[in-house]
């Protein structure tokens, strides 16, 4: 189930909230545990078993690591064992196809390619449960005494399928001691509305636009190609950060507090700043559990470069089992290395405008690698960004752009922190609740209407 669906908004959510607050505090985690399974199992119920397996393994892993806390050898053994199983399951379900294809590239080998469909959210919850076992090992988090509480944490429906990747240590206390308050609930509703608006009102129409404009890649002209890839970059941002906002908002409604996952990434002045603002929970995870254990920057420049390449190669692969994602990861790895050791000195002396343009240019090109999974299409598209021989702006692309111009401007504005700065100034005025209510209703009305519209399918034969 996704948040931006009628069934979630008008059936699952009302029921869950009502039941959650009717259940006495002591039973709320048990209730959440089961209602999460319904949420997750809605589309593909059998995959619930896989998630339960993951919960059991990591619960047991954490338990064993804790039990042998004084026996360094055994403790390490159980940690490694758990992590190997976790990565093994993730690898089996996510990368088998890619590995088969790669092996088949070798001469004289032709193994059948096994198609395994990716269980939704597996990349997210696997990383969450691994963070738990590692944190217990490092004494950064207490061991979970209750299977239900641990299961509730892993399967918590707000962040289950698209993040943020909540570390166990950040919610361990909240799992047992959270307080649901009206203030938090209202804050959650407002955040949820912001997220729903980002997703349904901005990201979805941008997505339609992107599909339409990339249907005619060879006749869009230089500007058309740029408009397309900029729209795609914004679509990804609003889609993903909207989902994170909805997750945090829903968490608030249930009494939780999650950390921010996006912080206006497009206003960054360098690539490394961009990655401190984009998908923060993922960058944090890789830093804490991969980069620093590998030695980080403490073992000399050579080793640091290798570490960065490993981390970014893995970050790329985490996003998807395809070579363009690997390329995308290395692209950022190399950019960050260049930035750190060469460019930074020069950039800092440049005017802010140049720093912004530099960052946006590489980020947007990066999303090109993200969109075109086919290498030859990718190559053709990259050329079209700089090839003026095909004209400036194709007629069809221009029409499409003009039709969506107000959406574009609104989206560009929403990429900047201007609106939240403005909001911070006025939020203490007495009549603010009226504006907030109006905002909620407008988002609800427009979102409901676009979601209802998706189901309105006049039967095609009557076109004739």
């Amino acid at each position, binding site marked *: 189930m996704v948040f931006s669906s009628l069934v979630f908004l008008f*059936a699952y959510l*009302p029921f869950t*909230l009502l039941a959650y*607050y009717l259940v006495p505090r002591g039973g709320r985690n048990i209730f959440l545990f089961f209602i999460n399974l319904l949420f997750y199992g*809605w589309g593909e*119920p059998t995959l619930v078993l896989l998630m339960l397996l993951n919960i059991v393994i990591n619960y047991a892993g954490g338990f064993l690591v804790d039990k042998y806390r004084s026996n360094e050898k055994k403790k390490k053994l159980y940690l490694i064992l758990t992590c190997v199983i976790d990565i093994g399951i993730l690898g089996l379900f996510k990368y088998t196809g890619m590995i088969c294809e790669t092996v088949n590239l070798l001469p004289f080998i032709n193994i059948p390619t096994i198609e395994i469909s990716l269980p939704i959210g597996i990349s997210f919850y696997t990383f969450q449960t691994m963070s738990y076992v590692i944190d217990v090992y490092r004494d950064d988090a207490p061991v979970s005494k209750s299977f239900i509480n641990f299961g509730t944490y892993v399967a918590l429906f707000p962040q289950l399928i698209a993040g943020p990747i909540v570390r166990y240590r950040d919610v361990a206390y909240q799992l047992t001691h959270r307080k649901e308050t009206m203030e938090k609930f209202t804050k959650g509703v407002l955040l949820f509305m912001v997220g729903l608006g980002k997703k349904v009102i901005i990201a979805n129409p941008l997505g339609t636009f992107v599909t339409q404009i990339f249907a005619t890649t060879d006749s869009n002209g230089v500007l058309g190609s740029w408009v397309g890839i900029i729209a795609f970059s914004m679509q990804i941002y609003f889609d993903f950060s909207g989902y994170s906002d909805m997750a945090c908002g829903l968490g608030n409604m249930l009494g939780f507090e999650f950390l921010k996952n996006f912080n206006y990434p497009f206003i960054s002045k360098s690539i490394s700043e961009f990655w401190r603002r984009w998908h923060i929970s993922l960058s944090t995870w890789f830093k804490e559990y991969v980069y620093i254990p590998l030695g980080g920057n403490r073992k000399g420049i050579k080793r640091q470069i290798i570490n960065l390449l490993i981390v970014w190669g893995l970050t790329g692969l985490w996003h998807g089992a395809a070579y363009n994602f690997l390329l995308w990861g290395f692209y950022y790895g190399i950019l960050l290395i260049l930035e750190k050791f060469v460019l930074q000195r020069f950039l800092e002396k440049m005017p802010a405008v140049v720093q912004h343009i530099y960052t946006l240019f590489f980020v947007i090109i990066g999303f090109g690698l993200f969109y075109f999974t086919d290498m030859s299409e990718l190559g053709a598209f990259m050329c079209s960004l700089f090839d003026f021989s095909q004209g400036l702006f194709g007629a069809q692309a221009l029409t499409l752009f003009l039709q969506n111009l107000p959406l574009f401007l609104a989206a560009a504005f929403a990429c900047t922190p201007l609106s939240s700065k403005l909001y911070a100034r006025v939020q203490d005025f007495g009549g603010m*609740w009226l504006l907030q*209510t109006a905002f909620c209703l407008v988002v609800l009305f*427009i979102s409901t209407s676009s979601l209802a519209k998706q189901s309105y399918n006049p039967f095609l034969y009557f*076109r004739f």
Partner: protein
Amino acid sequence: MEIKNKNIKISSFVPAAAFLLFIYVMGIWFLLAPKREYSPSEKRYLQKFPEVSFESVANGKFGENFESYFADHFPLRTMWVGLNSYYNLAIGNNGANGVYNCSDGYLINAPVSTENQIEKNINTIIDFKSAIKAPVSVITVPSTGYICNDVLPAVHNRYNDDEYFTQISEKLEKNSINFIDLRDRFKKAYAGGTELYYKTDHHWTVDGAYEAYTEFCKKLNITPAEKNSFKTEKYDNFYGTTYSTSGFWLTAPDKIKLLAKEHKGLTVEITEGNETKKYNSIYFKKHLDEDDKYPVFLDGNHAYTEIVNPDAKNGTIVLVKDSFAHCFAPLLTENYSKVIMVDMRYYKESVSEIVNKENPEQVLFLYGIDNLATDTSLPWLE
């Protein structure tokens, strides 16, 4: 839940209350409201409550169908669809649903994709012509947006009718097929104030069809029936296809006009599969009670229709067509004693066999240009 800070005003919770009120009202409304079976504006049956079984739940089919069920019966669904259309219009995205909201109350389909079936379909017609003896003519109806371009919104995709028509006429004339190019005549008539197309439907009006009929007669050297020899009937409240696809519910309805003439002994035989039904009128007035009244002409789409008029002087004409022909065929019956209509989307037997058996004076292909561009059933001719 508790209020932590007692200094906070109750009013600060109003946004959350409004949110809860909205999701609960809609949720409960959905539970209580009676469910419809059929959606006339979409011409489809709505999703029924999905079957619950171990298998359907386990393979996710139940969840999927339940989502369709929920969406299909969502409270105020029609209103939401309309709200979305007008929202898109308000933010400048006219044509978001593939229909432009134009001045003068016109709802016009956006142009078809430039990657289309026209060349393939024309080649099929040429191949067909070489296999039969009867003379062949082709009429393609220009798209509404091409003729009525003055009402279109400022930002719209280009209608490529000129390119298509040139391409078609060159190909057909090379193969000695008669192409009746309606562009000039239509532009003149439209400039003169004739409503050639419906405002809320993609079809042409009887007046549009009459223009095409006279042009056709002129090309073939036969005398068209005078317009004033017919009795004009007009009916209100016609909401056509572009209306129901667009969601622009505030658009004023169309009028539908018929040109009627009594002929003794006129019969209409409609064949669908193995079943043939016989009628005495071209007009099926029961459809005038529906929103979409266009099926008043010959009862809408059917595989095979035969109209016999003993009063007419000429022999037989075979009409391979889409629904644009439904208001055109009645005019042909003034001249041809037997009009055989074949719809390739439903008729899956040999058309050349009909031609060999009936030995018609003329074979006419009549398609709207948009349909010719998107139709994939014409190759059944072979």
